[in-house]
């Protein structure tokens, strides 16, 4: 081993190396972007593709089956973007709600003392977790279309709900003027309930006497709005679906696409949520429960005050991650044609306008934004869930 020649010592300096290396990396990336951009501009010219965001104000010219904001084929492409975005959010929220419910049930069932229940829950997780979500979406969609009858032979429930292969038709509520008071009553009821809860919690802290607040809660949250509802003369009406020609008119409907997508997303994501809940509960040492019982807490109190806060701290971050995954997976709707942003904006509009770069970037931006929002929520939750006095709560 000889000494490094002084001429080269310059290159053996770590700082200088770092600068050189980073300059090189930046230059390489700049070159990739530059050559990509110049290729892009020549390609665009050769193929006569337009650039820029003018296409957003152009007329879309196609119909969308499901929309929550005003939409017609005369609406602009930007409107299509909003319709798709709202549909993405709707199917994600529905999926998240049902995935949480199923996941909670399955996760708790896996830990059941009942051998059969525990095994069935385990089987559910292993079955649905190991089938790709896209396959599940296609399967349920295919099954729905294969099993359900045509509109003339719909399954009928109480003359108000109809199920056929065009979807599920439900009565649509029409709210009259007075209905705002019912909603107001509900809000007031919730506020009052919170106040009552707090009052009795304070009383318990002072005197040690607990009070069952269930009756008050029911009275405030259900009783008050119902009272107002009747006193304003039942300000709600229903528009019933009815068979007209080959299809149902009126009412509100859920398409089979929506149903298949929401169902598959819930069933699939529920397996992960169930696992997160199981891991969370199992992460609490048995000694905690024993200690709680030894201190004289009732099983219910020990669950509520000792077990759950610790279990949730472990379970909630992965569950929120699964919510994000569910939202991203909702983009697979493009395979069955539920009009969310991926299928209707990055699909139909892209095919018509041909401006792939702008459209794909806008779609990606939407998902990035959703990811960012969920990541922020996760951070806030993480900070709140930190139990004071544990090692990772910070000093």
């Amino acid at each position: 081993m000889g000494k490094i020649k002084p001429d080269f010592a310059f290159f053996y300096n770590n700082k200088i190396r770092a600068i050189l290396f980073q300059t090189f990396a930046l230059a390489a990336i700049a070159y990739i972007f530059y050559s990509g951009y110049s290729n892009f501009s020549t390609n665009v010219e050769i193929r006569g593709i337009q650039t820029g965001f003018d296409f957003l104000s152009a007329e879309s010219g196609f119909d969308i089956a499901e929309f929550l904001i005003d939409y017609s084929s005369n609406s602009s492409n930007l409107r299509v973007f909003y319709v798709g975005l709202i549909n993405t959010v709707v199917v994600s929220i529905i999926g998240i709600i049902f995935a949480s419910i199923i996941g909670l049930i399955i996760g708790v069932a896996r830990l059941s003392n009942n051998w059969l229940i525990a095994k069935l829950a385990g089987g559910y997780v292993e079955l649905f977790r190991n089938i790709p979500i896209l396959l599940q979406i296609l399967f349920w969609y295919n099954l729905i279309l294969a099993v359900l009858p045509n509109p003339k032979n719909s399954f009928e429930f109480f003359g108000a709900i109809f199920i056929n292969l065009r979807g599920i038709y439900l009565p649509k509520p029409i709210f009259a003027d007075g209905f705002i008071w019912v909603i107001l009553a509900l809000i007031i009821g919730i506020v009052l309930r919170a106040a009552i809860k707090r009052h009795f919690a304070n009383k318990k802290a002072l005197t040690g006497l607990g009070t069952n607040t269930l009756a008050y809660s029911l009275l405030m949250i259900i009783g008050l709005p119902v009272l107002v509802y009747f006193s304003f003369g039942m300000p709600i009406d229903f528009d019933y679906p009815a068979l007209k020609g080959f299809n149902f008119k009126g009412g509100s409907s859920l398409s089979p696409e929506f149903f298949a997508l929401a169902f598959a997303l819930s069933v699939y994501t529920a397996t992960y949520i169930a696992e997160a809940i199981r891991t969370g509960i199992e992460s609490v040492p048995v000694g905690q429960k024993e200690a709680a019982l030894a201190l004289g807490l009732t099983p219910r109190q020990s669950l509520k005050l000792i077990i759950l806060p610790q279990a949730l701290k472990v379970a909630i971050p992965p569950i929120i991650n699964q919510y994000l995954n569910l939202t991203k997976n909702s983009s697979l709707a493009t395979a069955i044609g539920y009009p969310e942003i991926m299928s209707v904006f990055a699909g139909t509009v892209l095919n018509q306008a041909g401006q792939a770069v702008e459209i794909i970037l806008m779609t990606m931006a939407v998902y990035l934004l959703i990811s960012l929002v969920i990541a922020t929520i996760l951070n806030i939750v993480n900070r709140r869930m930190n139990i004071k006095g544990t090692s990772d709560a910070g000093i």
Partner: protein
Amino acid sequence: MPAFKLQPNRQVPQSKAGILQWLHKNLFTNFTNSAFTLIALYGLYLIVPPLANWMFFDATFAPVSNAECGRNGACWSYIIEKLDLFIYGFYPPEQIWRPQLLVALSLGLVLLAKLLKNNKVKIIAWMIAIYPIIAFLLLHGGLGLSIVATYKWGGLMLTVVIATVGIVVSFPIGILLALGRQSKMRIIRLLSVIYIEFIRGVPLITILFMASVVLPLFFADGFNVDKLLRALIGITMFQAAYIAEVVRGGLQAIPRGQYEAADAMGLSFAKKIGLVILPQALKISIPNIVGSFIALFKDTTLVLIIGLADILSMVNLTSNDELWLGRSTEGYVFVMMVLWIILYSMSRYAKKIELKYNTQQKN
């Protein structure tokens, strides 16, 4: 003095042994438990017999035509008829020996690697270096073998090809990204973070769209990249970001002292990372790496949306055959079973590894 006489063991009381006791303890402890058991049994009764009838008892397994199959049970004749399509796609039938040979070769190499005693690392490294060339030659052709264009690849074969290439290529890129994210060089760190977080924030399908629709616009005119290759680029870019996060987890678990010790020994950066840090970091992250490969295998089905003929898209393609109309359910169930077996075995394997490494860490 009477000698001590060993008494025979007493019988376990009837109420504490046997199947009845097991039933009582596990299924009928109390009223609620019994109710749950009965509800579950009723649920099973509703689901299992019709399903079993459809799949086995009313099903047709003989290679007959669609009309002879009947509509009560599954028509597995359809799967038998289309089996080659499900496995090889539109690969020319007279060339199917090539993927078959490749599978045999791969299995042989795995066996060889298990049997090796000395020079293990060296020989495996050689195999890893040469294998892709052989695989490419066999599947694609060249050197005297007739060329089979990639648009003819399909079925399970394509699924496995995409998953394997995605796994192998994304792995080193992911490690580099993870190192970049941990680097002291700010620009490198920033670039890695942007890349990883961007990719992880968007669904795979948008990246596949990007690769299939947008990417061609960024290549020089006339420079045509194969559709399969574009999909592979997309999947690799996507997977690399996830591998990077998994490896970063491993890197963060390495105590600082290891870095300092390597520096104190005078190891160069490459040696420090390659000989001290990475072997430990990768070992910790192996379970998560396998987990992320399982996720990748599931994600390969998405290529059907950009028009590649993987095993899932074969259901649609074959059930559009007018001789076999109305058999897509059988197709989906068959693909489900195939993919489920593969994915379930992978997840069992992952669990096994996890247990193995967990015990080692506890020492």
